[in-house]
């Protein structure tokens, strides 16, 4: 069976939805962040598939940019999580509720 772009689409949309579900369900900030990374990687996969489909390298370059920016986000994000951990000794997002209403 040939693998069509449609198959890639289903695969990456599934991955994307798994990522979203993970973000919704998990309480650990690091895991949530990993689920976001999963969403980004689903996008990367789809980009590459479309790139192949259109025979256009542009999307592959885009993927590199996504990776770089994601790395930058990780750098900042982990720093923020560590800063939080130092204060409350937990990375559970549910205890973050000093700001509300």
């Amino acid at each position, binding site marked *: 069976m040939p693998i069509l*772009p449609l198959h890639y*689409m289903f695969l990456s949309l599934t991955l*994307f939805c798994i*990522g979203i579900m993970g*973000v919704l369900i998990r309480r650990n*900030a690091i895991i*949530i*962040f990993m689920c*976001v990374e999963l*969403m*980004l990687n*689903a*996008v990367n996969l*789809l*980009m590459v598939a*479309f790139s192949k*489909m*259109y025979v*256009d390298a*542009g*999307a592959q*370059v*885009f993927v590199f*940019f*996504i990776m770089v*920016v994601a790395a*930058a*986000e990780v750098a*900042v*994000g982990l720093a*923020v*999580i560590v*800063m*939080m951990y130092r*204060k*409350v000794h937990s990375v559970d*997002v549910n205890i*973050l509720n*000093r*700001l*509300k209403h």
Partner: protein
Amino acid sequence: MKAIIAATILGIVMMFAGLQMKNKSSVVTLAIVLAFLLLGVNIWDLVATPATAPVGYFNNMLRIDRYALWFSTLMTGVTVLYTLLVGKEIQKVGVHVAEYFALIFFILCGVYILSCYNNMLMLFLGIEILSIPQYILAGSDKKNLKSSEASLKYFLMGAFSTGILLMGITLLYGATGSFNIVAYSFLQSDALNPLALGGVIFVMIALGFKVSAAPMHMWTPDVYDGSPTPFTAYMATVVKASAFFAFIRLFQVSFGSISSQWTVVLSVITAATLLIGNLTAVFQQSVKRMLSYSSIAQAGFMLFAVLAVNAVAWQGIIIYAVAYSIATIGIFTVLMKLKDYTYDGFNGLAKKEPLLAFVTTIFLFSLAGIPLTGGFMAKYYVIQAVMVQNQFLWLVIFGLLMAAISVYYYFRVIIAMYFKEGNAELHAPVTQGEKVLLVITCGLVILIGIFPQLLLSWI
């Protein structure tokens, strides 16, 4: 283009200055000088670029036209005003003052990219350059748990919305085979690929997140409330305005031809934003938190401009961006002078500092949209833009009703200042220089209210 390079270099200069300069106030002075320098570069760009022919850079991934240049210049001008008014307060946030200013310069770099992008890659980069420094600024008050919480919340939700944005971009690419925003304008409404429509909605949601449109607004009150106040002032003004400019640029240039497909959804978003922003602001006790809800409400009005796909909307968003930013920065400046951020903290301010109370009143008038202030003209232009479009009369009426509600919570501050007994405690006496600056800011608000054409004369 010169401005983008200059903003990056000046940001790095600021970082190195942090290594060398130990005196905080000299760092602030340097930042103000550099901000003026950046404004100069912008004006140079504006004068040097011919009015008729837009210039493309990086294989036309950036396309610098008159609107982009003028908007960048205005936002830099607002930033200069911001550094002048708030610079002193930034010193108090933490030890790394130079880094904070460096981050502000990097944010400006993002603002410039967002005002002239012509390619989805640049949109993505611009949004990220705009956002990542904000995550850091939100958490810059390291001793304060609320600040860290705001930072983490903003970061998690921001990263999530990045994923949504990228998914939208990918779907659009899948439907058209291009990242160029002009290429999307050939989409036809009657034979629209569902992939493309899905992409449009995803992008709309991601940009809606950045401008805090409901139901993607939930981060706004917490982040604005938790962040150190000087940075809240910046996030709520320049950053939000430029996200709006990116929003309108994409949806007019690219998706104008298929506007019938997305205006209904956007009108629902607009109505929800207006409702939630205005209604929730009514019950707040802290003025800072009220202002963050009010910024959601104001975003609802700015969405009018996105909704109306025409030339008036461009003018509307420019006037709105400037009028709203100046008034908000002004009111945050006054807020930072006070010890108590609740309404009660304003009690009796009129007696203690009549000038401060007066300028606050003008800023609040502007936010509420009372005539002869910039806010009125801004609202007038965006509503006008929708009216010309001959649609969404119900939304206009709804918006006006909500504006009437907004009078309630803005005027609570005025009532507290003028009609309530109390002793509004200040951190430090207001200096003569600050008063002059506030009066100038106040003058600008009124000037825009009388001659809004001034803001459009360079386009």
